């Protein structure tokens, strides 16, 4: 390995180390915050909502449900907006995507659970794992390296579920 290769390797290693550190910090902060917020929801409420959401989504396309919830919320925003502050209406329009996404998507199963379910149903874990990997790759490709402002806007839209779904 020549000097240039060594420097390149060190640079990649340094970036990877920094990346791991950033991810850890963001993850830790989010986990703590989410845990605190979700502690305000009782188990029975969470269970009741999950039951209702699961039943409502039965046999439905999650994307289709999301579109319907979003349309309904947008209609409500326009109605309310005519009588109230326009900036509030604008803000409301911005968060409906997130709300619709939460309303329309069932909680994703952790991979370990999916693998267990695959075993139970006789589907090979490897096959299930490759399916999950394919889903992740497709998802990653959609978020990959936004090259310009339009690309970044797309990432933001997907984060706020305004222009599609982010089923992770």
């Amino acid at each position, binding site marked *: 390995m020549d000097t240039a290769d060594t420097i390149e390797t060190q640079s990649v290693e340094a970036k990877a180390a920094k990346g791991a550190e950033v991810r850890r910090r963001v993850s830790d*902060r989010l986990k703590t915050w989410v845990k605190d917020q979700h502690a305000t929801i009782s188990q029975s409420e969470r269970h009741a909502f999950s039951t209702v959401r699961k039943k409502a989504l039965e046999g439905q396309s999650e994307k289709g449900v999301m579109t319907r919830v979003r349309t*309904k919320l947008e209609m409500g925003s326009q109605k309310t907006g005519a009588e109230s502050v326009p900036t509030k209406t604008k803000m409301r329009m911005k968060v409906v995507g997130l709300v619709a996404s939460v309303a329309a998507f069932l909680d994703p199963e952790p991979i370990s659970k999916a693998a267990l379910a695959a075993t139970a149903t006789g589907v090979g874990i490897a096959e299930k794992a490759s399916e999950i990997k394919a889903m992740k790759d497709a998802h990653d490709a959609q978020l990959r390296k936004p090259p310009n402002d339009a690309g970044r806007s797309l990432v933001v839209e997907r984060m706020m579920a305004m222009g599609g779904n982010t089923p992770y």
Partner: protein
Amino acid sequence: MDTEFDPEARITNIVRRIDQSDLLDSDKIHLFAEIADGLKAAVLPVLLTHVSREELTAMSRNPASVTLDRYIEFIAHAFDEGVATDDVVRSLGAVIIEIERALEESGIPMS
């Protein structure tokens, strides 16, 4: 919190800063996914605060009575007065601040 707080603008800034950082693409993708999860997690507690408890209990006790239309009405009703929207924005604000702090601590400045 600032009444002019715009979650979309703040998230756009976060995405721009991460994108312009020298992190590896794989780490950027993971961060975007993690942040998206955090944003969604900010919504559920607020939503459950504003939905009708009676309706939730009635539907969960009798799941056979749950239709998609009824469910959508149930969700939309929580946002009728606009208070839930304010609370969602406030909650998003709190989670966005957490993300910004974590990035700042990691040497990714927000401004």
